[in-house]
């Protein structure tokens, strides 16, 4: 009896040891992250003001702002979304619902999974060759947006496929049994029931794209821009203009990079402030993704 008790105490000791180790490891991660965020806030929050958002970059740190950077990021994300969403969703639907399962689709599948792991600078090189030199889009918003679209395309495809795979086959069979065609089944069931998962994937993809720097620099984004792209809405007919697509641009992470690489400490404050803005943008997008997932989960449970 005494032996057994000792044995149990011994076993429990190891239980306890692991509990402590696990807790400490978790804390290290959390504390580090927290310190980083607090540090960023302490450094930068003083510079956050209305003026910071509405000013162009400048030689004088106190006057410099992120206007061209956040506008550039915004326009870039629009191009990225418009290119990546239809392509990615269509490819995902095709692969799940239409493609025959054979060696060719296996190869495509492996390639898409691998593409998701390709370093982002490679996408920059690809975009430069394809969009700048071949299609002659210039070092423009269009090129940058398409480069990021390529980058997140595998994520959108995979999110779409996963969301579609979550739909039970009995739903497809119910639809086909009523005489529906493949497209009717996709349009009335597959797309609506996977929208939650697809949207989540898209937003997470965009929130990755928003912080990307390497491919954007590669395709020639400028670091100092003191003007805005051409407005997409015009006063005269036809009231809409796509000239902005071909304008040069800068984005948030490049602006940050530019400021930290300056010798004056004052600029580092600007960088921290812009970092806060970028981080809040990302967190907001992730928050929206979580909310969408929650809403759709509540409505559709298989």
């Amino acid at each position, binding site marked *: 009896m005494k032996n057994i008790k000792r044995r149990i105490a011994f076993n429990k000791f190891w239980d306890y040891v692991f509990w402590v180790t696990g807790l400490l490891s978790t804390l290290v991660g959390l504390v580090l992250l927290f310190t980083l965020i607090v540090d960023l806030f302490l450094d930068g929050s003083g510079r956050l003001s209305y003026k910071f958002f509405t000013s162009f970059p400048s030689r004088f740190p106190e006057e410099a702002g992120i206007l061209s950077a956040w506008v550039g990021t915004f326009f870039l994300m629009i191009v990225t979304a418009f290119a990546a969403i239809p392509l990615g969703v269509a490819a995902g639907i095709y692969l799940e619902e239409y493609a*025959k*399962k054979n060696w060719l689709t296996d190869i495509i599948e492996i390639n898409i999974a691998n593409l998701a792991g390709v370093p982002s600078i490679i996408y920059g090189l690809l975009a430069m060759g394809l969009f700048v030199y071949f299609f002659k889009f210039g070092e423009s918003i269009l090129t940058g947006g398409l480069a990021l679209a390529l980058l997140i395309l595998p994520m959108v495809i995979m999110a779409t496929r996963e969301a579609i795979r979550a739909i*039970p086959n*009995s*739903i*497809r*069979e*119910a*639809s*086909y*049994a*009523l*005489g*529906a*065609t493949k497209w*009717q089944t996709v349009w*009335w*069931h597959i797309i609506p*029931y996977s929208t939650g998962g697809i949207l989540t994937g898209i937003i997470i993809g965009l929130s990755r794209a928003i912080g990307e720097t390497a491919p954007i620099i590669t395709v020639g984004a400028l670091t100092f821009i003191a003007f805005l792209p051409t407005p997409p809405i015009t006063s005269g007919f036809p009231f809409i203009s796509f000239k902005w697509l071909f304008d040069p641009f800068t984005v948030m992470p490049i602006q940050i990079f530019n400021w930290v690489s300056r010798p004056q400490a004052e600029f580092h404050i600007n960088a921290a402030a812009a970092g806060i803005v970028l981080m809040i943008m990302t967190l907001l997008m992730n928050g929206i993704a979580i909310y969408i997932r929650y809403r759709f989960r509540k*409505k*559709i*449970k298989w």
Partner: protein
Amino acid sequence: MSVIISGELKAEVKNLNFYYGDVHALRDINLPIERRKVSALIGPSGCGKTTFLRCFNRMHDLYPHNRYEGKIILHPDNINIILPEIDPIEIRMQISMVFQKPNPFPKSIYENVAYGLRVRGINKRQLLDEKVEKSLRGAALWDEVKDRLHNLAFDLSGGQQQRLCIARALATDPRILLFDEPTSALDPTATSKIEELIVELKNEVTIIIVTHNMQQAARVSDYTAFMYLGEIIEFDKTDKIFTAPSNRLTEEYITGRFG
């Protein structure tokens, strides 16, 4: 076999063989289906009942490597519905199916029933309303759901969901209605409701039902086919099968000695 059938034929299965790739799942099946009667398929698990039923609406065409041989003649058109050159969609528009587990769409009750009509391009509100009500009445569900047609179908109980699936299948005025063990996921009360409904429905539509519950076959069907290892061992009037089967295997099965 056709001497057993007294009335008008709705369908005739002739030398049907079916293959899942290399798996020979149905062997030389011959079976007459009488119009506006209930024909039951019974037999132990894995004997091919589902496989056979799903030939009638060409569900096997949804998956690769499946192959049919032989004929399923649909009367009065006298066409062989398993011919590859006949579009499965054309067949599914005339032969509806109710599945083993209730599988409503995550849409409203109304939209579930209306779906088959929408697939056929019917979008007129008034016509849809009429058809939805008629089908829900036909499936003995109308009184329970008439005040909440636009609620989600998932909020219904299992038995109600299955009756909704029956309403959905009825909405398109099918010529044959296929049931694959429609009550195996339901409790006894819900089961007896569906059984009553099936007996009711045969006034309007020809029914083929798969069941592993022999009492159910005895209660609802006019004809019964006993299947074993992909073959039809015996086919007869239901009374005859359950009182005086002529095959030893059938007798062993219905007396519960195997299966």
